């Protein structure tokens, strides 16, 4: 048997466990195609809503030594126009996961049905964006609200349903259990940590929206903790995200219990080569340790 990086998230087969995180290069079909060419195992689209949205005016991004703070404000072309992008994206041959945001279950259903028609391999519900009023984490911290969204969307589609959660709550595990109880197929953790930057010279917040979401290496330890705790709380697969850039980071997430790992900020900090570099390191690790597949290491940090 040969070493393989293949992984499976409730029926979605990935050639390797690295995945593009939502919101990074995922707004256009061509970009998603490039991410496929760059070696990612799957790609998640930018979170798409019902209508076109311009997002917030600039500044929408702050660059720190160990990460970014962003408040893009969920810009996007809207579900209608996104069909064209999806048809381009699908040419990449890797699973494309449709990320969605909405304020109420009915809108999530509408969006999910369209995304499925467009050919998405799975739906990722953005229940976790920390900076768009009325969306994301504002619904994602309430287990009942989350259960209701998951239940209704699940009933309307045939493809797997993933829920992306926020670390900005003490109720992470309750929310995850609500997702599982309502029929959700996988948990994605985490979205960004609510944060902000202030300019001493300008004496004001830098971001137009004032607060935003912290991503990158600064939050890796937070994402790892969430994945580790989730692994002991739910039985559905977990996809790790937050500060992963190297094969070592990916291994840490796998050992914490993730079946796959999304990379967002790493694309900006290290370039598109980040996927291939991480996969190369993973292969070497498996070979050096005489392992055939990733399943041998998923969750091993829980065995003592």
């Amino acid at each position, binding site marked *: 048997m040969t070493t393989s990086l293949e992984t499976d998230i409730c029926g979605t087969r990935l050639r390797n466990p690295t995945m593009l995180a939502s919101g990074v290069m995922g707004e256009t079909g061509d970009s998603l195609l490039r991410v496929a060419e760059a070696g990612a195992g799957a790609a998640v689209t930018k979170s798409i809503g019902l209508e076109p949205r311009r997002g917030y005016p*600039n500044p929408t*991004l702050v660059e720190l030594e160990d990460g970014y703070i962003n408040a893009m404000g969920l*810009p996007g072309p809207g579900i209608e126009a996104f069909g064209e992008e999806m048809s381009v994206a699908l040419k990449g041959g890797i699973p494309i996961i449709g990320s969605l945001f909405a304020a109420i279950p009915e809108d999530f259903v509408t969006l999910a049905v369209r995304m499925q028609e467009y050919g998405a391999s799975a739906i990722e519900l953005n229940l976790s964006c920390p900076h768009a009023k009325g969306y994301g984490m504002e619904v994602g911290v309430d287990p009942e609200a989350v259960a209701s969204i998951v239940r209704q969307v699940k009933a309307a589609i045939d493809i797997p349903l993933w829920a992306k959660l926020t670390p900005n709550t003490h109720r992470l595990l309750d929310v995850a259990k609500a997702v599982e109880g309502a029929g959700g197929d996988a948990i994605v953790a985490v979205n960004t940590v609510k944060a902000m930057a202030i300019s001493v010279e300008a004496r004001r917040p830098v971001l137009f929206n004032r607060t935003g979401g912290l991503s990158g290496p600064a939050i890796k330890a937070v994402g790892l903790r969430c994945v580790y705790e989730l692994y002991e709380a739910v039985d559905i697969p977990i996809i790790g995200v937050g500060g992963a850039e190297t094969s070592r980071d990916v291994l840490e997430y796998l050992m914490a219990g993730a079946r796959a790992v999304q990379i967002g900020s790493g694309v*900006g900090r290290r370039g598109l080569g980040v996927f291939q570099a991480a996969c190369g390191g993973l292969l070497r690790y498996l070979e050096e340790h005489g392992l055939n597949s990733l399943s041998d290491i998923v969750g091993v940090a829980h065995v003592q």
Partner: protein
Amino acid sequence: MFSEAVKIEQRVEEGKGITTLRFPMGAKVRPGQFLMVWIPGVDEIPMSVSFIGALAGITVKEVGEATRALSLMKEGDVLGLRGPYGNGWQLPPGRVLCVGGGVGMAPIMTAAEGMADRTRVDVAIGARNAGEIIFEGRARRASDDVRTTTDDGSYGLKGTVVALADQMMREKRYDVVLGCGPEVMNRYLLKACKQHSVPCQLSLERLMKCGAGLCGSCVIDGLRVCADGPVFTGEQVERMTEFGRWKRDDAGLRVSL
């Protein structure tokens, strides 16, 4: 990458609606790279570095709200900078023709000044009219063959800068052409270079939000102008189906240029 706030030390009006702001800056910049420039309370926009060195600079043309606010900034005012971003020019050995249209001279000028040998770099400067011709003096200090052209003939030759470049390629053999200007200028320049079989590099523009290769707002086909560009080779540009035809708006929707 750095993120810093600077105080403007010098403000120079280069031409009609075109202003240079100079400030001390810590980071090392390569010709052709750009900064994300934050005008506190207004906006943050991409600006090519037009002066490299201890007293760095940007040169802004007023076209809308942010560029107007930037143009009106005074010495002592604070700007937020992050960057430098982008790849910058590849300066090969051999003879270079630099072609700048309007404020497109900003990144072109640093390339010309970046050449070790002034006899190996020629410059073609174009603008709509005399008031918008910038950096001619700087160019003459960096090159022995600097020519100018205006659309209305109010200064230098009358005609487009592409026509001028075409003329220069007819006269001399260049190893590379560097171009920056409005997209239509870039498009015709690419065509002219192809006719003369001279490789070219073009600095492109698109709506930029993050500047850092993340948000995807600046893509042309699959390429991010901020991270994969802004300088692209002629071959790359030729393969772009959207070049010269489409751009993306704030929502990521494709709109015609």
